[in-house]
């Protein structure tokens, strides 16, 4: 990249070669209006809002697609550009239904904002009043074609960011429609409900079922925090109002996901239906009964004194809580471990970062199902495949990634993959707990050519690793102390200990067996840190207050440690 010099609205501007005129102008503080352009997407240049005058060029040029060149003289806000933009807006408003008074986007709509900026106080073109479809077949968000301006941001988001290729355009001219797959209802389509299209839509066409009419930008609070739904640890921008979670957005310039989220991170936490534990519970006459913290902690401390103890943690909580947990267990001389299994170690190769997947030309997926459990990694693999990377799946059961893989083999045939990958430039091996020893052996010839990404099945497995917690099964001890947090429990989990303490956010089959249940906050009701797959320590923020009688695990564990000293 080299420096170039151009003149924008009479002002000398320095830009980088490779930048568009739009980017060069932005760098110089000149905002050119856009609609179909979105910084996270490729440029399409179709809406013509960004037209500018360029000296020496006969026609107006679209700034979002025009490469900035040395010596260019550009005018961005002239009478001519203003009139063209207003004309474009008039056409957009005359096509479908843009009666803002019953649109949930009114106040935050990019189309509406541009209309205001261009003084559009009435419409001059007749409207066709054609009724378009409203598709509400997906759970979390709705597509109202009546509000759609066919900017194709959603299509590009689905193709380029989610790499899911669900969306496309159907028909031509005035009949053009956004459609899913071969024109099926969204709910029956290949859509994975990552919500990226929803986030980029500039109008009220894509409607978030939870936050619609819940508050305009000027009424809501945005807080940046970290997703706790899997080990990837995507950055979240959470929208809240009146002590209510309204919406979760991705953060465009964040590592590793770059704004991409998955259904678990974006929508699931807003639709939680499990019953919350809100007060300490102790077993009295065989029944769990509400108690004070003092009473509950006294009981726990008493049980822990002198008896054999096993501590088991679901790695679904903060680094601070896991450290306090490991510390208490050491103080007690008990054994401590994690509930979830870990991915095995290879003995060769170099560790990869999540984003390395995007740069790979050969991706091996073995003993892992990222599309189900660390979805953004799965989408990254799709994205790499779109860019020409070869994907090879080694699996003894069905794997959703096989659909886009060049080859899928059973563990016994892993050698085939090793051979196929031999000449690759950058090999990334994505694996998890299902990686079999024979596969590790078969891929060994690739040696340090392999960059590996070991997917931890637990949300904060890295945090557990840092304090030395290794997988353990429940054993027979006098006391079991289970740090469960928000983690759902497998019905099969049987804890044989005589006295069971469960620190949990929700009621479950495990709390039913417990002798004492201690309520814990949710990820958005607490501060603390989590360690992502990439080993980055990221903060959690308090978005909503926890119920009054809920205490952070680390606080409780320290109180117990003090009682037992």
């Amino acid at each position, binding site marked *: 990249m080299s420096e170039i010099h151009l003149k924008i609205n009479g002002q000398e501007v320095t830009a980088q070669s490779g930048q568009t005129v739009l980017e060069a102008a932005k760098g110089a503080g000149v905002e050119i209006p856009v609609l179909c352009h979105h910084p996270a997407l490729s440029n399409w240049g179709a809406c013509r809002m960004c037209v500018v005058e360029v000296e020496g060029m006969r026609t107006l040029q679209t700034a979002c697609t025009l490469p900035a060149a040395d010596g260019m003289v550009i005018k961005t806000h002239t009478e001519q550009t203003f009139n063209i933009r207003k004309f474009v807006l008039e056409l957009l408003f005359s096509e479908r239904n843009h*009666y803002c*008074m019953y649109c949930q986007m009114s106040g935050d709509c990019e189309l509406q904002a541009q209309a*205001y900026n261009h003084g559009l106080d009435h419409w001059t073109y007749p409207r066709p009043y054609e009724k378009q479809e409203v598709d509400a077949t997906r759970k979390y968000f709705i597509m109202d074609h009546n509000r759609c301006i066919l900017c194709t941001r959603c299509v590009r988001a689905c193709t380029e960011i989610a790499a899911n290729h669900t969306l496309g355009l159907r028909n031509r001219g005035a009949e053009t429609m956004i459609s899913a797959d071969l024109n099926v209802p969204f709910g029956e389509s290949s859509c994975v409900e990552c919500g990226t299209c929803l986030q980029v839509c500039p109008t009220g066409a894509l409607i978030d079922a939870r936050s619609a009419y819940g508050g305009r930008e000027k009424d809501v609070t945005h807080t940046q925090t970290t997703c706790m739904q899997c080990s990837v640890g995507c950055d979240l921008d959470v929208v809240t109002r009146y002590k209510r979670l309204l919406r979760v957005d991705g953060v465009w310039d964040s590592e590793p996901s770059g704004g991409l989220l998955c259904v678990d991170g974006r929508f699931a936490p807003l639709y939680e239906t499990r019953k919350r534990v809100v007060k300490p519970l102790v077993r009295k006459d065989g029944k769990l009964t509400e108690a004070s913290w003092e009473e509950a902690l006294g009981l726990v401390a008493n049980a822990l004194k002198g008896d054999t103890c096993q501590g088991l943690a679901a790695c679904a909580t903060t680094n601070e809580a896991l450290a306090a947990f490991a510390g208490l267990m050491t103080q007690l001389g008990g054994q401590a471990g994690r509930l979830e299994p870990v991915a095995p170690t290879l003995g060769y190769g170099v560790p990869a970062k999540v984003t390395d997947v995007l740069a790979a030309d050969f991706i091996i997926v073995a003993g892992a199902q990222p599309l189900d459990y660390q979805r953004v990694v799965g989408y990254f693999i799709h994205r790499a495949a779109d860019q020409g990377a070869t994907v090879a799946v080694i699996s003894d059961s069905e794997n959703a990634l096989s659909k886009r893989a060049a080859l899928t083999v059973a563990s016994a045939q892993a050698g085939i993959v090793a051979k196929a990958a031999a000449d690759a430039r950058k090999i990334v091996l994505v694996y998890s707990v299902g990686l079999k020893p024979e596969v590790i052996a078969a891929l060994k010839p690739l040696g340090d050519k392999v960059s590996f990404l070991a997917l931890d099945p637990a949300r904060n497995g890295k945090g557990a690793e840092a304090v030395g917690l290794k997988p353990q099964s429940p054993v027979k001890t006098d006391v079991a102390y289970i740090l469960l947090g928000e983690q759902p429990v497998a019905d099969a989990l049987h804890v044989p200990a005589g006295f069971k303490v469960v620190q949990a956010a929700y009621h479950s089959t495990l709390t039913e067996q417990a002798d004492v249940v201690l309520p814990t906050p949710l990820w958005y009701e607490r501060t603390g840190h989590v360690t992502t797959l990439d080993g980055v320590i990221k903060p959690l923020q308090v978005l909503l207050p926890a119920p009054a009688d809920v205490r952070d695990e680390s606080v409780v564990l320290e109180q117990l440690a003090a009682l037992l000293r």
Partner: protein
Amino acid sequence: MGKIKVATQWLEACAGCHMSFLDIDERIVEFFKHVELTSSPITDLKHPPEEGVDVGILTGGIGNEDELHEAQEMRERAKLLIAMGDCAVFGGICTMRNFFPTAEVLRRGYIETESTVDGQIPQHEDLAPLTDKVSGVGDVVPVDIYLPGCPPTADAIWYVLTELLEGRMPKLEGKVLKYGMDGG
């Protein structure tokens, strides 16, 4: 200087725009120092005087023959015509019916609605027939000033009126140009 004559009427509307006008609160005292209101939907005189007014303010869309006639009358009698509110400017919420054939709208409204028993579509020579589609005022007569909003805020209305009183043509932009309830 004599008072400026203003007439107003509501067409296919909910009265919200006139309510918003009343939201100018105590400024109304100042307003009536300069203005004579010749006719309005809530005074005895409903029609603008034949000798004409300086400013006519219409709220609501055009949805039947009577409203069309009222709009034409106001246009003829007002030197300057303001279309006030999203219905008068764009047709507004009443245009929801434009997405269906008129016969279907009447059948749904008078016969099929869940709360209706033995309904019938009213027909009488005194009832104005519906226009095929609801439209804004500007679609049937020339309009001089468009003031959108559902309703426009009292401040936007006040801005337009005071500009006119000062002898300037109001220019709708910035905080006073809003659609829907966005001004609130």
